[in-house]
């Protein structure tokens, strides 16, 4: 019955609440479902107990892979190649700056405070860095829609959010590969590189199977079965081998968008299933939260502060390094403060991983960040988009203007 209620909730959220909140209150929906999960979960009212969470596990695990596919689906090469290279450079700089800043802080805190050895501290630090890098595209889209404006700043935010997602997904996959737990049943344990290759192979084989399965099929029903089968198989396989489902899902999504002839239809399929699964994941994530055994105040506060510095400072540095500080201004990074579902997915992915170290602390940081930033992200993005002129001239020749 609980699953039905959650599904109904997810459905209603996807259908009505999200659009309404975005339109009327400039609020990116999501945080309220986390709070709902927290309230219903075993730590509060216990309406969602441990048994129910166990029953829900396949669904929120699937949500991770599905989200990876949805993110990968944004990487359509014809659009990517028309985007000025400058935008990628800026996106990568702010992304890496944030990762280094937050990851460095987390590692120094965990190793310096003696909570973990320097080597073991690298795992939660890397995952916190990956979570910090993730930014939401929704705020920028809501802002652009409310202003009726779509200038180069909006495209920059889209590119930055995409690169952030790519960096975050790769970071968590690499971290989990490096710290992968031994299987014990094999002649020799795979190396971290081999684990990473296995995770990537899962996504690539999923995409290949989809094509072998369908060929030039145009029927929506068969497309649905093929897409569902491929994403479910990929997610299940990645989790089964103890790796993140996000990277294989991402690769599958990227293959689908770039190779299928039914791009719009498949995109619609991916999007429509993603929405209810997303809200189910948020409620489940809230319910799964457990107070950390170690002190979380300092690391979480530090995470939030360094992320703010990383995003805003990284944005400024990126613009400065590329000679466009005056064009984009010093505060465009504010528009990337929104965390969105990917941050929760990264935290949840880590929480569910058998490899995880200090998972509760990392997950708490992700939840706090999403709860704080989702309410303001659209307003921050609106401020940035509104402050920039309708037409932005780049100092370097743009190869198409995206």
């Amino acid at each position, binding site marked *: 019955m609980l699953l039905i209620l959650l599904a109904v909730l997810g459905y209603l959220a996807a259908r009505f609440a999200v659009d309404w909140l975005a339109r009327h209150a400039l609020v990116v929906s999501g945080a309220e479902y986390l709070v709902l999960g927290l309230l219903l979960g075993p730590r509060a009212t216990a309406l969602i107990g441990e048994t129910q969470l166990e029953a829900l596990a396949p669904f929120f695990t699937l949500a991770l892979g599905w989200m990876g596919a949805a993110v990968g689906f944004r990487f359509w090469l014809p659009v990517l190649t028309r985007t000025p290279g400058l935008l990628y450079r800026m996106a990568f700089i702010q992304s890496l700056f944030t990762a280094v800043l937050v990851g460095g802080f987390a590692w120094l805190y965990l190793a310096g405070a003696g909570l973990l050895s320097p080597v073991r501290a690298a795992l939660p630090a890397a995952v916190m860095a990956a979570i910090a890098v993730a930014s939401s595209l929704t705020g920028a889209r809501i802002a652009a829609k409310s202003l009726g404006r779509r200038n180069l700043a909006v495209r920059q935010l889209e590119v930055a959010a995409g690169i952030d997602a790519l960096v975050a997904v790769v970071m968590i996959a690499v971290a989990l590969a490096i710290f992968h737990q031994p299987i014990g049943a094999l002649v020799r344990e795979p190396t971290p590189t081999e684990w990473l290759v296995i995770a990537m192979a899962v996504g690539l084989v999923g995409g290949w199977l989809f094509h072998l399965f369908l060929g030039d099929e145009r*029927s929506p029903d068969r497309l649905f079965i093929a897409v569902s089968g491929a994403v479910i198989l990929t997610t299940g396989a990645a989790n089964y081998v103890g790796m993140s489902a996000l990277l294989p899902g991402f690769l599958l999504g990227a293959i689908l968008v770039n190779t299928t002839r039914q791009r719009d239809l498949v995109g619609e399929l991916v999007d429509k299933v993603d929405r209810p699964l997303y809200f189910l994941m948020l409620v489940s994530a809230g319910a799964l939260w457990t107070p950390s055994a170690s002190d979380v105040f300092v690391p979480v506060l530090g995470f939030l502060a360094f992320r703010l510095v990383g995003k805003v400072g990284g944005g400024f540095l990126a613009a400065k390094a590329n000679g466009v500080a005056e064009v984009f201004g010093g505060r465009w990074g504010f528009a990337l403060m929104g965390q969105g579902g990917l941050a929760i997915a990264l935290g949840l992915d880590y929480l569910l991983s058998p490899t995880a170290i200090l998972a509760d602390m990392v997950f708490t940081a992700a939840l706090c960040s999403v709860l704080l930033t989702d309410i303001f992200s659209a307003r921050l993005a609106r401020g940035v988009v509104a402050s920039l002129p309708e037409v932005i001239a780049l100092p370097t020749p743009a190869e198409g203007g995206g």
Partner: protein
Amino acid sequence: MRRLIVLALLFGAMGLIEPLGRAGGAADALLTFGFLILAAYAAGELVARMRQPKIIGYLIAGVLAGPTVLGSVTVQAAETLAPVSGLAIALIAFLAGAELDIEEIRSRGSALLRLTVVELGIATVAIFATAMALRQWIPFLADADLQRAILFALLFSLIAVMHSPAIVMAILTETRASGPAARATLAVVLLSEVVVVLLFSLLLGLVQRLLPGTDAPSGGVGIIIWEIAGSVPIGAALGAGVALALRVVREDRFVFALLAAMLGQEVASLLHVEVLITLLVAGFVAVNAARDDGGAQLRHAMERAAAPVFVVFFALAGVAIDVPAAISLSLVVVPIVLVRTGALAVGVRFGARGLGLTDPQRTALWQGLVAQAGVAIGLVAIVAEAYPEVAGSMRALLLAIIAVNGILGPILFRRGLVSAGALGGGMVAPAVDPSTPPEAASGSSA
């Protein structure tokens, strides 16, 4: 050729990935679910090229993947997917209810009931007689005294006679069959389900009085009556609720259809009523009470939602088949299958007189009754609760019989429908309809 490559790749990939992880848990369930969707669907397409029903492909893929053949799917992983089977049964019942025509029930209801009783009666007696004749080779009857043997043989016969609404619905959906034979087959399998459950409950109560088992009876007559009779008002209320909700929900009916089936299943389970009857009534009321074309659209949406669930449901039925056990029991299985099939043919010949069916239509009807699926296993579980000492061997024998009938039935039924000229008319809307409007098509994607 492409389908064979897909199948080989899938089985190969499962073989490669299996030693790299740990069985059990959500990941294993997802991996198995995804594998079964793709493998069974590819096998279904392969079989369809040979002009056989796709569900044969789903079953064969399940058998191949099962623990007794290639072992790609473990028993543990299959058990974690049990909710999928529950959802499939709910969808089947809802769809079947949605197909029932009120005019047909009024005009031919009594004739259909008579046919059901006659075919069930003849087939049960024939199976019982065969089981008693082969008693010394049937483990749970061999060592029993005469009274015990008779009672267990009766229970066994009642379970072994069951038909499969799931397979009949799947074949009708796939072949778009229409006409009197298709409608009558669907009505009889549904009616027989109710009749058998009722008779089984009464018989088990009687057996438990005569042969006290290790466990107390799982319910009195009152509970049995509530399970059956309570299903009707609860299903009607559920159906009315769905019809009302359809006025508001105009998009994403695919998701709505899935949720409606899941809700019905949960409500029936919570209130301890028969899931099948509840959803059957709900489907009937929802489609007939909905405004405009809302009912038809819901039915289309539900058929789309059911497609992947059916694929996995039948593949899981294949996984449950223990091939070595089925082969070892073939001396008993083959005569029982032959006698059951013959008895159904005779039963329909005598029982269908008032329905005005032609010879090919009667043939199609009895051939539609041959198929069996996993619902009967649920009844064995109830027997096991009271008599665990017989459950193992009875389950093994029934699984072997179901395995043979599950593969033989769809082939016969499709052939029968072809001979009766019932294919392609569309009593049940096609799962893949090229004329689907864009809204409905996108609805399927949710």
